[in-house]
């Protein structure tokens, strides 16, 4: 649906790599161009009309994000460069000051590197432990397994809402309830979740949330860090500089601004943030529930067509998102991607930044098709027709 909004889709190209990044609708690009062409001033700086307009548009995006994730306070929305920076700020700016030797952080083997490496660093600096919630036979996280993994030393549970290889939706609300009963913080990596479904931070009761604009039709280089206000107050800025300080006379007298400004040092990606506001308006107009349902229907159509193909090994037959991960018998995933590229079909091959998933799934590299609302049933027919012909794949993979 809404294909006419995406200039690239008028070309002969089938884009199935939406978990890596999404296409951008023209209205978002126009909004950013409008900033660069007509009011390219800095934010929070000037007392003239152009700068005032920048402030207004920039802060309007904050309000749109607040409403989009149903947060209570505007100050709980911090603009970052993306999910990765947000998660690093959470680990380094908040938990580094809180966690002590032998405290435990629970993650899973299917987390993205951005939700693994910041915690690994705390193992080195704070002597904490990183433990793994076991995945079930479908590679899902169950509340029961979370219960079993919690120990008296568990202080944080940090999970992707939807994983980027398996595509399962985690029971975050139940996990938050369980965690909070035992004074455990919950961090939600929403990179693959926010683009595809409605997320309500108050209903889920997550303590922190990180996500990126570029996976949800927005610009690259923009993301969000959400934190409950009382927690965010204690998140120490990792980056210091212009815009975030109130005054400084000497090293002992440095005063910082209030939230969220003190966590947004330097000149931010203003065009990106303004473009992101337009993105949210665009997604709201379509409706997140409609997007989610359409993707599930599309996925089911693809899975039903792939299952009869004996040479296709599907890693995640069951999944509640638009991600389908598979391998073709005796063909390296990258060669499958090269083959499909010859027919202008874009898919991703590799480990999808979830390097430690190998220990659970037993497969290093896979082909991943990740769907979005602008994909169609006809595009899936094209893909399946090509994947059906094993001899053709082998003949044309180089």
């Amino acid at each position: 649906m809404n294909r006419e909004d995406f200039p690239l889709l008028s070309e002969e190209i089938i884009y199935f790599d939406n978990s890596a990044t999404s296409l951008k609708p023209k209205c978002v690009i126009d909004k950013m161009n409008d900033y660069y062409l007509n009011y390219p001033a800095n934010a929070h700086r000037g007392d003239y009309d152009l700068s005032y307009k920048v402030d207004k548009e920039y802060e309007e995006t904050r309000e749109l994000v607040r409403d989009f994730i149903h947060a209570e306070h505007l100050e709980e929305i911090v603009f970052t460069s993306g999910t990765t920076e947000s998660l690093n700020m959470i680990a380094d700016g908040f938990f580094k000051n809180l966690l002590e030797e032998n405290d435990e952080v629970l993650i899973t083997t299917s987390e993205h590197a951005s939700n693994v490496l910041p915690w690994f660093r705390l193992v080195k600096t704070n002597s904490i432990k990183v433990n793994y919630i076991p995945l079930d036979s479908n590679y899902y996280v169950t509340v029961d397994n979370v219960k079993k993994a919690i120990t008296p030393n568990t202080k944080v549970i940090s999970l992707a809402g939807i994983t980027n290889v398996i595509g399962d939706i985690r029971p975050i609300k139940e996990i938050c309830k369980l965690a909070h009963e035992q004074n455990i913080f919950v961090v939600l990596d929403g990179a693959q979740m926010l683009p595809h479904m409605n997320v309500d931070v108050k209903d889920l009761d997550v303590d922190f949330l990180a996500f990126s604009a570029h996976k949800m039709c927005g610009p690259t280089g923009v993301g969000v860090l959400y934190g409950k206000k009382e927690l965010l107050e204690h998140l120490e800025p990792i980056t210091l500089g212009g815009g975030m300080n109130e005054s400084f006379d000497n090293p002992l007298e440095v005063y910082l601004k209030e939230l969220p400004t003190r966590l947004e040092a330097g000149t931010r990606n203003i065009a990106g943030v303004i473009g992101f506001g337009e993105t949210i308006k665009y997604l709201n107009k379509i409706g997140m529930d409609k997007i989610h349902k359409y993707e599930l229907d599309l996925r089911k159509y693809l899975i039903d067509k792939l299952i009869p193909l004996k040479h296709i090994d599907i890693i995640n037959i069951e999944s509640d998102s638009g991600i389908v991960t598979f391998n073709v018998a005796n063909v390296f995933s990258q060669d499958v991607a090269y083959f499909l590229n010859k027919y202008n079909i874009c898919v991703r091959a590799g480990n999808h930044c979830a390097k430690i998933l190998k220990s659970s799934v037993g497969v290093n590299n896979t082909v991943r098709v990740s769907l979005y609302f602008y994909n169609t049933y006809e595009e899936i027919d094209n893909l399946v027709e090509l994947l059906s012909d094993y001899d053709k794949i082998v003949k044309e993979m180089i």
Partner: protein
Amino acid sequence: MTEEESRDIIIENYLHPTNRNKTHEGYQSVNTKNESCIDNINLYIKWNEDKIEDIAFDGEACAVSISSTSIMIKNLIGKSAKEALDYINEFYQMTSGEEYNKDLLKDAVVYDAISKQGNRKVCANLPLKGMERAILEHLK
């Protein structure tokens, strides 16, 4: 060589590569991988002074990398370190689109055309890069 003949040689070497997963106790080992993709190969070399007596490999990589490893192994066994370095340089000449010695490269000429396809050049060069490093290490 026609495009079809080249493809057949590549596929044959991909599906039945030389010395893959062969025992390699006491061999020199070197890892070679590409940052821009997911190819990852370990090479194992048995030396008799400066002569290459045997090469084995394991790892995961695309059809171009695996087949290029297989062909390289066949062509380098029995060569001296210097002869092997000459072979590797000729291979780089070919994949860079320069003049090269076809007789020296033998069936490795199948990568002449393929190396012009985007980042497939790095796939073809991958085992050669690892082998070059192993030889220079051996000569130290």
